[in-house]
């Protein structure tokens, strides 16, 4: 059970307070009618399933009730950073900086 830093509580909290909520930054197209079936399928189902730094969502279900984003390395399971919903997808430079402790 790893620890997750909740960007709202600003604390590390045990994993079992959280629910994993899948890959992050998958934009839900509001004009979905204009998408082809293939494009819609890609939105619904296709995932990076990244080996390495993975952008993903977590829900602090048994805490502050907030959804937030994280970068986690799927090879080591270590979190690189977590950030609030609405914050832009971090750049490679930002991820690197976070790995080096800012």
């Amino acid at each position, binding site marked *: 059970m*790893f620890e997750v830093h909740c960007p709202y509580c600003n604390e590390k909290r045990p994993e079992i307070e959280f629910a994993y*909520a899948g890959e992050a930054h998958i934009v*839900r197209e509001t004009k979905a009618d204009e998408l082809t*079936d293939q494009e*819609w399928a890609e939105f619904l189902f296709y995932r990076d399933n990244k080996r390495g730094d993975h952008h993903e969502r977590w*829900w602090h*279900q048994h805490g502050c009730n907030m*959804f937030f984003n994280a970068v986690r390395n799927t090879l080591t399971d270590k979190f690189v950073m977590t950030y609030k919903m609405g914050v832009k997808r971090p750049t490679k430079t930002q991820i690197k900086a976070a790995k080096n402790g800012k």
Partner: protein
Amino acid sequence: MANNKAPYRTAGRGNDGSKTINFTFDGKAYQGVQGDTLASALLANGVHLMGRSFKYHRPRGVLGAGSEEPNALVTLDRGKGRVTPNIRATVLEIFEGLVTRSQNAWPNLKTDIGAFNNIFSAFFPAGFYNKTFMWPKSFWDKVYEPIIRNMAGLGPAPSEPDADVYASVYGHCETLIVGAGPAGIAAALTAAKSGGRIILVDENPVLGGSLLSVPNDKIDGLEISKWLANSIRTLQKMRNVKLMTRTTAIGYYHDNFIGLAERITDHIPNITPGVSREKLHRIRAGKVILAQGAIERPLVFNGNDRPGVMLASAAQTFQSRYGVAVGNAAILFTSHDSGYAAVFDLADANIRIPIVVDVRDEIPKDIRAQAKQRGIEIASGASISKTHGSTRINGVEIYSPSTGAKRKVNCDALLMCGGWTPSLHLWSHSKSTIKWDDEIAAYVPDMPNENAVCAGACNGDFGLLAALKGGNKAAGGRKTYKVTARNFGAGTTFVSLPSYIDTSKQKAFVDFQNDATQKDINLAVREGFASIEHVKRYTTIGMATDQGKTSNLNAMQIASNAVNKTVEQVGLTTFRPPYTPTTYGTFAGYRTGDLFEVERKTPMDGWAQEHGAVYEPVGIWRRARYFPKPGEDMDAAVARECKATRDSLGIFDASTLGKIEVVGPDAAKFMNLMYTNPWAQLGEGRCRYGLMLREDGYIYDDGVVGRLAEDRFHVTTTTGGAPRVFRHMEDYLQTEFPHLDVWLTSTTEQWAVIALNGPSARKLIEPFVENIDLSPEKFPHMAVREGTICGVETRLFRVSFSGELGFEINVPAHYGRAVWETLFEAGKKYAITPYGTETMHVLRAEKGFIIVGQDTDGTVTPGDAGMEWAVSKKKKDFVGRRSLKRPDLVASGRKQLVGLLTENPKTVLEEGAQIVADPNQSIPMDMIGHVTSSYWSESLGHSIAMALVMYGFDKEGEDIYIPIEGNTHKAKIVSPMFYDPKGERLNVV
């Protein structure tokens, strides 16, 4: 020297010789002393034969003196529900009245019929089962496998529910130290000064580790025993230090999360009922210091498994700590200096050492001198080619490869020392890396993956001084120690010990318990199993209950030799948790029986119980299923409950329905996105049935939604669906629609819900309701009002899931039972009848109302369920809308929800029964649908069913068939609205 009855008892540091303990092994009574393990006590009585090996049933004695033991496994019998197989005699603390038995032997340990396997062992090499038992084919099921299965297992399987209970707890510390030998204790003394919380754990009953086994030399001028006692006292006094004995660190998980298994009652003669036997500590540590020590490596040679052959360090431990002589004449066979320390200790305790056989040609001078001083002969550059004896060793054949000379020397114990293997188990669990160290011929820690450090022997730093310094340093100290102790010394690794006997004819065991030998490894390699993981799986080395603690490194070296690669190239098998076998009970902790899972009960549950309800689990709720009267079965009770409700009045506990309060100026906008229905025009005080889809277009949940105010909706969900619907809504609100000003609050448990259905419903509640006009004009069907009932505030819904005039009375939960009872009392004049979920299901099915999850599953669209009417055509967006247009979801031939009437009106179809168009087709048949709901309808006098059928809507009036085993039923497709299709009964005045 308390116990004169035990012939091999001497004085030991680690036991209390003054207290005699009586115990039995295989029915025979023995005496040991307080502090003994079963192994030390049996050895004190001269008993070496303690077990039989797994495959060949070879007689075996102890190999080690600790948790690494592969041979001496026994069954412990503490009475009904407390029989435990496969206990290592070397860690089993004896207590008064202990009853133990040997295992895997029949009729008895000494004469074991199973040992015929040993005679034919040439036919059962590693992997033999892959090559045989294939002909004739039918013999596998009928003959071979049953025989193999009958030979399986070591100890007996449990046959009674466990009589013990277990515990589990979370804990936190700044520093966790695993292992309380010299390194661990030095680390604890140093770390404790930092003020942070320190936990020091050791698997043994007493702290000290190797300090208990070595001669009483001096640390900083104090005798070791005194130094140890002082250190423990110091640690005990510190409030920030927690010392835990009989506690094994079993696994190292993410972010310094360590599992510790504590054994609480296994050593206590009388168990207090209710006190936990074992406890799982789930520790989050800031830093972990691993001081797990090292395990001595056996030597692999012909006959190395006879009872009486053991690790040199084990003999030393039995001697120094337990005060037990492992024999009268002990020979040492070694490739490492450290083995001499053991025999010197034994010699100093007046045990005869007939000879030391050292494989090495060169032996350090000081060792030679010390041996000479004790009159011990050393045969250097020699080997042991054979051992003699049956259930106990009685001699060895010493072979000199340079001269070819052989000679027999008698003994009753043979000690072996092949160097040391640092215990890297937990380090490796943490995914920290290891590297090969040629000097000590073992793997040592490399790069940490967690905030962890190894200290002492498990770091490859051998000897007392190195351990103390290493422990101190690991905890951030810089102390030096003055130690007078023997040098630990060095050694050489011999992959293959010199012998004149062909290796294929030798019985040179690598994995003792699984009877895997050097030749098995060679065979594996010969057959192309070059990876060490292949070798492990092919030979089963390292897969016994000791998980290869004494065998893995030997196996790896033999394999690397056989494939002509370096050990690093061959690699090491992965260390798997737990460190030592751990009971399921420990993992389950407190969470067994009633505490396994939460069983949620409604406020009226107690009333239902008092009124004889039969329950059913729904999700983690328990709900009353029906209320049988004496002599009634479910069918009779349900028929009565249905009739009573339709005739006059039924009362039903609907409290488990999920409830979410949706509040904010954008509440209607949000509802529009989450549900298929339109919400903007729903007036205050009105209700609507809501249908929720997943983004993939399939039905996810449903429920009645009441609009209490412009900005406030009272949403209900299915019972099991409440948590996932809440998550689904929060997810969309926070991630996709954060611009909406609306908030969600779960109110499932705020409200107890009493559903009243039947023509008398209004009459019943009228006298109790205040501030709500109940007249049909002011309070029509699908309306909601706030007011009071029985003096308690209520949200009163006029809704019906039965087709009758119905009310759902929401009252604050802790008044639920009182309101229910008041209404029930008053309802007696209307023949009020409590009903459960089963009747609720029948009543709704008679009306053709669906149950999400029963009549729909995760593959059903609103169109399939005949609920297009609930899907807004005008809304530009709602969750699932785009998916409904996908090709397969608009394709023809989808299964659609219809009603069924069986040809024989008395036939109640089985739910889940499959439907075919052609009853005469042979198997496999083309299935066109299945029965989702099926009941006897007392109101209609015939059975009814709902079904999902391909092209169902177009087939109304057509016949279909339901083949049940041995019988085929015919049924007609009809509208699922069986009862009161015009809905007139809703408006009974």
